[in-house]
Every structure is written in structure tokens, then in C-alpha cells.
């Protein structure tokens, strides 16, 4: 019985061809120029950054490009202290939801250049970019965000984003 094969590990892979679509494309082209380009909902006027194709609340296509940031506010965060298969960042690290100034939707990014215990809801942060020659159309052009040293944002100013 002990010789029976009960389980085998079989790695599988799938290759995707990803089409970014027009809205994400203007955002990704912005990243190639070191800019954050969002999109405004023509109905509720809120700004999506990164942009989606539609404003789910209003059910309409997003409209004009809006340049936002580059600074932002940490609305909430997680200190990741668990290792897992496929992880690319050394633990512990802070995965934060950052509300870029002028945007109305938070995005996920990494916080560094401070102790994990110093990270706070409301902390003001700015992006740190890779050398320009390494830029790709990706948010990974920013290695991380770091504290700006400005006073923290008032909780009420971002509590509607949680």
C-alpha cells in the first residue's frame, strides 16, 4: 500500500494576450511619461485612477483624461508578514491603498523608506520612480511610495473612500 502513488505535482501554465483597452491605455501611456492619468465620470464627476472603462455607480463610460497626483494619502494598509509561493517582495512589507491627490479611487502600492510601524492611515506619500530607461507601461515603474513628511491628512478627508 505504501508504494501506491496517491498524488503527483504537475505544473501548468497559461499564456495570455492582454488588451489594455482605450481607457487603461491613456493611463499606461501616462506612466511612460512619469504621469498619473485618470478619467473623470461625466455623470458623478469623480476621477478614477487607475481608470476603469465605466463608472459602475453611474453605469456610464468614463470621459476626459485628468492628470492627478503625484502625491497621495494612505487611506488604509496591511503589513504583510506571510510568505507565499510567487511572492516578489521581501516580507514584512506594507501594501497600502493610496488615494492619489485629485483621484477618487484608491490604488494598491508598496510603502518603503520608513519603519512598517510608522505607517499610518492618513500618511502623506510620494512616488519613487525607477530610472527612466527602465520604464514600461506599468505601475511597477514606481518602485514604491515614501513618506513626504507633510502633516497627515484629516481622517474625514478620506473616510468616504474606505
Amino acid at each position: 500500500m505504501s508504494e501506491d502513488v496517491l498524488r503527483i505535482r504537475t505544473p501548468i501554465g497559461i499564456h495570455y494576450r492582454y488588451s489594455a483597452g482605450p481607457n487603461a491605455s491613456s493611463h499606461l501611456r501616462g506612466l511612460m511619461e512619469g504621469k498619473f492619468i485618470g478619467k473623470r465620470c461625466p455623470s458623478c464627476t469623480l476621477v478614477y485612477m487607475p481608470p476603469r472603462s465605466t463608472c459602475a455607480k453611474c453605469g456610464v463610460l468614463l470621459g476626459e483624461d485628468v492628470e492627478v497626483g503625484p502625491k497621495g494619502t494612505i487611506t488604509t494598509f496591511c503589513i504583510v508578514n506571510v510568505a507565499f509561493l510567487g511572492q516578489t517582495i521581501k516580507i514584512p512589507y506594507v501594501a497600502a491603498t493610496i488615494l492619489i491627490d485629485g483621484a477618487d479611487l484608491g490604488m494598491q502600492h508598496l510603502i518603503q523608506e520608513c519603519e512598517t510601524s510608522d505607517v499610518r492611515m492618513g500618511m502623506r506619500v510620494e512616488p519613487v520612480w525607477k530610472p527612466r530607461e527602465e520604464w514600461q507601461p506599468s505601475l511597477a515603474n514606481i518602485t514604491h511610495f515614501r513618506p513626504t513628511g507633510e502633516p497627515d491628512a484629516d481622517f474625514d478627508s478620506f473616510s468616504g473612500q474606505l
Partner: protein
Amino acid sequence: MAERCAVIGVGQTKHASCRADVSIAGLVREAVDRALESAHTTMTEIDAIVIGKAPDMLEGVMMPELYLVDALAAAGKPVFRVHTAGSVGGATAIVACQHVTSGVHRRVLTIGFEKQSDGNAMWALSVPLPFGMPVHAGAGGYFSPIIRSYIKRSGAPGHIGCMVAVKDRTNACKNPYAHLHEPDWTLEKAMESPMLWDPVRMIETCPSSDGAIALVLANESIADAHDGPKAWVHATAMRSEPTQFAGRNQVSPKASEDCAADLWRKAGITSPIEEIDAVEMYVPFAWFEPMWLESLGFAPKDQGWRYVEDGVTEMSGRLPVNCSGGVLSTNPIGASGMLRFGEAAMQVMRTAGEHQVDGVRKAFGHAYGGGSQFFAMWVVGADKP
């Protein structure tokens, strides 16, 4: 509803981190055989099968309902697959219920399962998205910032999550099918549990489980003739919303609040805390107990944690929550929602054994999934609706 519907059979597997003794088919069949036995019926009397599980990538077996046809004796019968991520067990039971209430089928078998040991869910839920920043770290990494928001907003003290976790792990010791049987937890010990996804401690997280549950649902004439315990479905509700939109309330999503309001209206319930006798709520991370108590209307906003602190949700409390040990003690993802629905039915049927609450007339089953975006709920009762 054109037809009334009742749960006349419930069967679940022994849940464990690795059920190496069975394949997916064997696991599912174990739950099905127990459900059919408790419903005093056989496979041949089943009109249709409704099956759900979490995303296929969790095991890497695509469309497993096709390969399960033989194990379920489903050849030639209608088989319906449901996909709503972690809420799928609840959504699947509701779809099965609709097969009966619509009058199309008389006796329907519904199944939820997951065999997490066959794959790697943490990996499957952390795949880097194109052009983004790969900071994702599984479900814990997703939900922990939302929990931090709740703690900040409500002013809850830090030990509430551990209180929920100790309660559920202790309750699980009364449930022979539960995955984790850990009788020795104390609040003090729990507070020393390591922070995995700060502010979420290890004890405040669910395990990875292999397991399955099956229910037999029947129309009124069959349920009336059934010589055994039954739970009548009083109301069901489902809602969903996108994961990301500007101004989204992630702590208490609108879809959750709307779903609960719809459920209470359909069930004729005006005060959930007064009228519900037992709750089986989807709590994969301990802090979601107070969060859902508020979102579902059991507790006022920002006060859910006080219910935990005051022991309201203990098995002996005014509103017993997760007497089975809940998702925190057993998490075969695709089965977890149906386990909540099934355990709620068991409380009404008085078949919950050691974790039975006295005098349950109405019980509530709940599931959520995705990025807190899919919701499924039902109320079952001892009396006909």
C-alpha cells in the same frame, strides 16, 4: 414563490486540511450519500443537480462538474453549475431552491465543495495583474486593510477579533465534522498569536480545508410526506457589486445592506435580532463578525464589536453566531457558504447535536465572496412560511 421549498436532507464530510483518502469525486459523494440518507431518498429520485465551488484555479481542474457526472449519477439529468467565488455555496443553494420554487423540479440535490489540498489557493488568489504592482498577498492581504478601516471607524478595541476567533474555535469542538478541533484557546493566548496580515492575527484567519456539503431540497408535497426533520425556506436573497468604484463602502458594501434588507422584507422580519434564533454567518477573518452584524442589521453602526464583547454572539448568548465553529474552523471555500446555509437548516431541524441551540424556530444562513462583492442569504424556519 409558486411553490414552497424545504430542506429535507443535509450531509457533510469530515473536513480536514488534506483528505488524501478520497478524490474530489469521492469527497463529493461522501456528502451526497449522507444527504440522501437523511432525506430518506435515493439518487434515482433526484430531478436535478445544482453544484458550486470557488474558482476552478484553486484546484486546477476546469469545469469539474463534467467529470463529477458519474459520481453524482447525473447522466441525463439537468446539472447547473454556479460561480460566485466564496459566496458560491450560498448562491448554489439559492439557485437549487429556485429550481423547486419555480415548480420545474420536485426534488433537487445541491452540492458545494472544495479540495484545497489539491491546489494552492494563496497562489491562485495572488496572481500579479498586468501593468499593476504585485503587492497582493492572498485573501488576508485583501481583507486586512478593510478590517483596519472598520477598527478605525468604529473605535473597536484590538482584542475583539481574538474574542470571535476563540469563540468559534471553541464552538467547533462541539462539531464532529469541523476541521479544527482546538479546545485550549484563551483570549490571552490568542492575543499572542502572530500578526500575519497586520492587523489580522493568525488565529483570526480561516484554515485551508478539504470538504463538501450536500442538501436535498423538496417541494411542499414531498416535504409534507417526508418522515423526518425539515427546514422550510422562508426567504432567499442575492446581490452583487463591482470590486472597485469611486466612493465604494468596502466595510459595509451597499450590495450587502441591500441584500439583507430584501431578505428581511421577504421573510417578514422587522427586527432581525429579536426574530432570528441562530446565525450562521460567513466569517473567514474574525473581524468580519462585528462588521456583518452591523451591515446585516443585527447591530447598529459601529456597535457590532460591543455585541461580541458582551457575549451576545456566544452559543449561550441572545444571538448565537456560528455554533458550528464557522469558516474560522472549517474552510473548504466552495462548500463554506453552503455549510452556513446547511448548518442554519440543521439548527431548525434540531439535528445539530452538541452545537444545537435550544428552541430555534428561525435561523439565518449567510455567505459572501470575491472582494466583499457577492452576497447570498436565506432564512429557514421550523414552520411553513
